[in-house]
């Protein structure tokens, strides 16, 4: 095993899949010569050339539309959207086309497409700091992956590229630099499988993507006071694997969901509804959720700092729930 960044893990997945299957191609803004806004495709242009790595003009609807068409035409395109904020411009291609074509064609045509795109923030303000995972997780026909560690990122991206379904693969700009164990050899991880990232008996914390790390940090801090949190990483938001969550709640009787998105109609609402409906008798109290303040993201650093729950707030919430 060796330590690799989330960024390098993603690049390894892309490279390995491009070598393995010549139908895989990458298209997007700045992905070629420049090597990607977040350097995910760095130096791949020299290796794979301009036929398989396409620097596109600025038009996200056409990037996704072209990728959908290429997938229907027998290729396995990986479209990169510079940030998830620009997916809004491509929404009709994603929602009405990528997600539904297989169904609408009576199963005759598959759309083996991956849309890779980072969520994230960092003084980028209202139009550049969104995640939108709940919007995509809402859609039948789409698979929505949102890995939180380098190991998961690599294994899940490889599976996404091999999948015969359209996959919205949501990365996180603030995770690209984090390091973790990533084996050197070939491996894949299934989509649609949640993962216990830290075992515990007192409370279940459900998280994914960057908030996974907030959850793990809070769990570490609480452990010093003898409070053992079980942290569950959803990893895939659609289809949603609730089994590890249910098993955990059976032990802990309490659940807290963390998300980076606005909580109204968010993933936390979905998780809370499922636990409350399916495991009502296991609960000792209501499922709680924490997320972003319900305003657009401001720019000023002092305001931005108020937007998301941090480790301290999560630990306080856990203590409150256990008291």
């Amino acid at each position, binding site marked *: 095993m060796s330590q690799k960044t989330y960024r390098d893990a993603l690049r390894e997945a892309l490279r390995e899949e491009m070598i393995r299957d010549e139908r895989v191609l990458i298209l997007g*803004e*700045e992905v070629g*010569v*420049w090597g990607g806004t977040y350097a995910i495709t760095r130096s791949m242009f020299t290796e794979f050339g301009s036929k398989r790595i396409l*620097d596109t*003009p*600025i*038009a996200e*609807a*056409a990037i996704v539309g072209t990728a959908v068409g290429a997938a229907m035409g027998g290729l396995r395109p990986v479209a990169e959207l510079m940030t998830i*904020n*620009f997916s*809004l*411009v491509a929404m009709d291609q994603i929602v009405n086309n990528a997600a539904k074509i297989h169904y609408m064609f009576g199963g005759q045509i598959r759309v083996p497409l991956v849309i890779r795109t980072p969520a994230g923030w960092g*003084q*980028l*303000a*209202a*139009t*550049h700091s969104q995640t939108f995972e709940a919007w995509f997780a809402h859609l039948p026909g789409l698979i929505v992956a949102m890995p939180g560690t380098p190991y998961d990122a690599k294994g899940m991206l490889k599976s996404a590229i091999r999948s015969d379904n359209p996959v919205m693969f949501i990365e996180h700009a603030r995770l690209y630099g984090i390091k973790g164990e990533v084996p050197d050899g070939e491996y894949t991880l299934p989509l649609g499988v949640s993962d216990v990232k830290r075992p515990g008996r007192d409370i279940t914390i459900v998280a994914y993507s960057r908030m996974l790390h907030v959850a793990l940090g809070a769990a570490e801090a609480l452990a010093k006071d003898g409070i053992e949190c079980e942290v569950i990483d959803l990893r895939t938001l659609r289809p949603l694997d609730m089994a590890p969550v249910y098993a955990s709640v059976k032990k802990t009787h309490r659940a807290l969901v963390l998300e980076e998105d606005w909580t109204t109609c968010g993933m936390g609402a979905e998780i809370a509804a499922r636990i409350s409906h399916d495991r009502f008798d296991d609960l000792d109290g209501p499922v709680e959720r924490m997320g972003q*303040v*319900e*305003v*657009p993201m*401001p*720019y*000023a*650093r*002092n*305001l931005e700092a*108020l*937007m998301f729950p941090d480790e301290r707030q999560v630990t306080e919430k856990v203590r409150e729930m256990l008291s």
Partner: protein
Amino acid sequence: MELPLRVVLREDGSADPELDPGLDDEALRILFRKMALLRALDEKGLNLQRAGRIGFYIGATGQEAAEIGSGFALEEGDWVFPSYRDQGVALLQGYPLSELIGQLFGNSSDVTKGRQMPNHWCDRAARVVSVSSPVATQLPQAVGTAYAAKLRGEKIAVIGYFGDGGSSTGEFHAAMNFAGVFRTPNVFFCSNNRYAISLPVARQTAAASIAAKAAAYGIPGVRVDGNDVLAVFRVTRDALERARAGEGPTLIEALTYRIGSHSTSDDATRYRPAEEVEAWRGKDPIKRFAAHLKQRGLLDDPEEKAVFEEAREEVRRTVAVCEAAPPVPPESLVEDVYAEMPWHLEEQREWTRMPEKR
């Protein structure tokens, strides 16, 4: 179809009498001072970011003629739908320098309350609407505001700015088409600075020019030397007058060059040949205009230096005032989300006032 390139300032510093817009001496001096001010603002903006005093900046160095020439053609009542590189146009619309610089700091000197990234300026009084980060979103909006003016019988024009990269978006095409169909009083001003971040314009379009695209929408397209402030002023004034007279929209393509990086987030030396940048430095729009003014006896070397020094001093003074302003108050986080404060945000406001809870 090759459209002619409109040029006023000739190699030897003289102006082509046929296209010379005939501005008076005072106007010519203002043009020069504003170009110098824009250069000084950009230099400072980049330095502030490098020093970590602001988070981000986008400069227009090398594009001053396109900015100032077009902005100077605007009249009272006209609206600007800018892109993020149009601080020069904002300055000419009467947008105070202190507000532009306050916006960079996002503190209480920012009239937009620290809500947006640097370079996302907007000012109701100056009729400069907010830049929208997703490129070219502003163009259909410019059509709508122009339509509103037309319906209300206001004799104004609405100008929308964008880059060569922006011309690839669906919004660009739809906006041109709507403007053609509704004959709105619009001017679409493309600063073709040859690059969209790292992508050269030849990878953006296979068309001979961006202006040529106007033909497809039944509107006139104009190509102008974007480093020639008088030519830019002339074609923009003509287009704005057409718009105000109810004769419909125009697409202008100003050919210029982005001397610096796209923004403070990239490094252009990694994707552009140094010789190309050097060649364009030799075509500096401010120097070119200075040569013309000198020929007309309106400027000499010491005065030229003094204009730049004054511009830098004005920027320096304004930065000092804006930077010293206190942070925006925490409770402003939840204000302005709706026209009136709803109860659920009123509750949040209480929370922002309790430091121990935050």
